[in-house]
């Protein structure tokens, strides 16, 4: 029972296909989305829709969010490019929070099994304080992050002049940060995370969601009955039930008095009422083709491959950016010990995850399922007992 209720693959490390009983298990596939080279062209969104024949997801009005008019991931939008405009203070905050990550000894993936005490040691060394609750002054409640010492606001402010900044604290990263620009425009292509411990997959009652031989998580359109549990089960808000499937332009507005033979018959609405999300182009993977978004991506901001290689590449890229002084760079989803066991889609972000609409500390709900079952068991037993007592104490007939 323990094994059955454990979050998917917790028993098998970060290769979730290992015990899936495939005749030919394959290496785990994934994406590495390097937002530092994304040009926000949205080719991924279109290529995805085109390949998967996903319906239009729009009322054809601006979404009031910079150049982003697709709002977010959903049943009809499986790739979504976020656009975030930031001024200098936000850039500095991002750089600072990234630096704090480094200072905290956060490159934890390599030595993921460093015992907690080591982490504590690092913290102690850096903050000069014992682990545990710090004084309110040391922990600004707003950021929730202990700042690195000697890198306070004053230092940052002193570099506001626009000239080259002085060499920064060598203990963090031994680089000279580049000039902080006045402004930046972040772009990032979001996608299903294909979690190691996938909430949607765990809670699906029909088996419509399944773990493929590539380690990805896919909905079987012919099985799903649209119960919607997976929607609530996803800590990233990715999967959604498709409401309708209008893939057509506003035909009622067509000025043509005639209905000529159409070169393409309109696609009928597909998979209405069924949970939908990125399949990592499962059908293409079957034939060793690259997923549509990664194939289209002009600047290789979206990379596809074996997850292990991608994580290596991602680490190299972060190290390179850090070496350039861009401490705001960080990885998201590369850590197999995080709340979802690491994600198949790894991201390089340039700010805190929530800025991109990503949860800062997601946790697959089924991680707590054994405890929930235990609590519920006690409650149910209590109810049965209460009933029994009621009959014993409920008086005569």
């Amino acid at each position: 029972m323990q094994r059955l209720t454990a979050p998917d693959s917790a028993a098998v490390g970060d290769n979730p296909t290992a015990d899936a009983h495939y005749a030919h298990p394959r290496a785990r596939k994934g994406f590495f989305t390097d937002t530092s080279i994304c040009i926000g062209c949205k080719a991924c969104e279109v290529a995805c829709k085109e390949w998967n024949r996903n319906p239009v997801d729009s009322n054809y009005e601006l979404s009031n969010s910079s150049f982003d008019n697709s709002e977010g991931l959903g049943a009809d939008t499986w790739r979504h490019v976020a656009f975030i405009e930031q001024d200098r203070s936000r850039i500095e905050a991002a750089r600072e929070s990234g630096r704090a990550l480094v200072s905290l000894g956060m490159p934890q993936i390599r030595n993921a099994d460093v015992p907690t005490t080591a982490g504590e040691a690092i913290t102690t060394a850096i903050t000069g304080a014992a682990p545990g609750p710090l004084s309110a002054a040391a922990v600004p409640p707003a950021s929730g992050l202990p700042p690195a010492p000697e890198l306070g606001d004053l230092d940052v402010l002193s570099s506001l002049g626009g000239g080259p900044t002085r060499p920064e604290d060598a203990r963090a990263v031994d680089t000279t940060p580049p000039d902080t620009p006045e402004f930046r425009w972040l772009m990032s292509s979001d996608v299903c995370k294909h979690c190691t411990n996938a909430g949607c997959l765990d809670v699906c009652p029909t088996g419509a969601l399944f773990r493929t031989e590539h380690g990805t998580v896919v909905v079987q359109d012919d099985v799903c009955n649209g119960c919607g549990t997976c929607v609530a089960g996803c800590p990233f808000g990715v999967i959604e039930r498709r409401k309708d499937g209008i893939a057509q332009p506003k035909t009622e507005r067509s000025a043509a008095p005639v209905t000529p033979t159409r070169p393409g018959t309109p696609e009928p609405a597909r998979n209405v009422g069924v949970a939908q999300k990125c399949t990592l182009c499962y059908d293409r993977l079957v034939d060793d083709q690259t997923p549509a978004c990664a194939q289209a991506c002009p600047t290789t901001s979206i990379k596809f491959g074996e997850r292990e290689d991608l994580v290596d590449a991602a680490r190299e890229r972060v190290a390179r950016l850090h070496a350039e002084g861009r401490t705001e760079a960080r990885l998201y989803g590369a850590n197999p010990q995080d709340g979802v066991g690491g994600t198949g889609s790894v991201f390089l972000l340039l700010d805190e995850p929530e800025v991109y609409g990503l949860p800062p500390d997601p946790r697959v709900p089924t991680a707590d399922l054994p405890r929930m079952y235990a609590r519920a068991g006690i409650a149910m037993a209590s109810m049965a007992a209460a009933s029994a007592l009621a009959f014993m104490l409920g008086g005569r007939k």
Partner: protein
Amino acid sequence: MTTSEYDRYRPPEEPRRRRRRDHAAAADSPSEASAYAVGTAVAPSAGSAMGPDALATAPSGSAPAAGRRVGARRGGLAPAGGDGAREMAMVPEPQFAPADGYYGRPVVKAPPWDERVALYLVCGGIAGGSALLAFGGQLTGRDALRCNARLTALGAAGVGALALVADLGRPERFLNMLRTIKPTSPMSLGSWILAGFSTGAGVAAAADVDRLLGQALPLGPLRRVLYGLEAPSGALAALLGAPLAGYTAVLLSDTAMPTWNAAKDDLPFVFVSSASLASGGMAMITTPTAQAGPARALALAGVAGDLVATKAMERRMDPVAAEPLHQGRPGWLMRWSERLAIAGGIGTVVSGLTRNRWVAAASGAALVTASAFTRFGVFYAGKDSALDPRYTIEPQKRRLAARRRAGIMHDSITTAG
């Protein structure tokens, strides 16, 4: 409101089409007045009250807050007046404090469940508790209680199951619920529980129905089988009664909806208590007071448990994640649930003392309503909590920071390399 003198030449605007998005649809619902709206709506604009001339002549820098940069940066920028005002009021400004995430859009998605699922939550509780009462009646020879409770159990389970099927995106595929047995999926286990429970409750109730109709059912030789299965069926239904009443708490908690998930330790207790008082209440309505003693006792136990468990739950939850339980529609429901439970509990005591059938029925109705309010309240609160990213982001940031303070560094999803 007009920003252009020429606006009057324009025909009235068609109402805008809503996005085909669940969260948008939910925002349309009455819960609009809930925490979400309160939490994110920005202050009314000074600019919206201004005429174009005032703005056109105002020198830059002394212009009112409408377009001022500082305001823009801090997210305090006013919503648009003029044409877009109706929509704009809900739409946050580009530059956001991080707790508002990405343009204030939800981080997690609420499940596409509507009131039918909430109704199922209510029915499940009533059915589960009723099966227990029926089994008790069966064992203690309270025939009326047994018969009424069996029918209630079957009816509630039936209504609940139908509501559940109707809420599916593809109702014709409801049988796929039994395609597999997934321990990780409360919905899967729940489906099996519901199937087993319904079978048990159905057979047991069929026997009672047959008896009520003077064995008029054309059962032939099957009648003996039916009566033979009656007792074990009643036992089966009773065995699955508490699980049926309580598993839905796990179903809700085993999600990424901040309020539901934060309530995971105590919600099962709230739900079984609520089921107890509701089934007790139902029995008090359907059954003469003479036989309803155990129902009253169960109801009173349920009231006590409900009050205690709900308070405990709210106290132990992350304060931010608990907010939706206190605000807007769910807040109202939860408050009235408490009041009705207390009132129903007092009424139960009174009816137990007076043996007044009307007091009993009224108290029972109050209890059933209280249970329904609890479950609807919890249901709405969870859905609301998905709409505002704050409920997702703030508790997560807090627990992350707490772990980091405690020196736990290895489990962050964000890493420096």
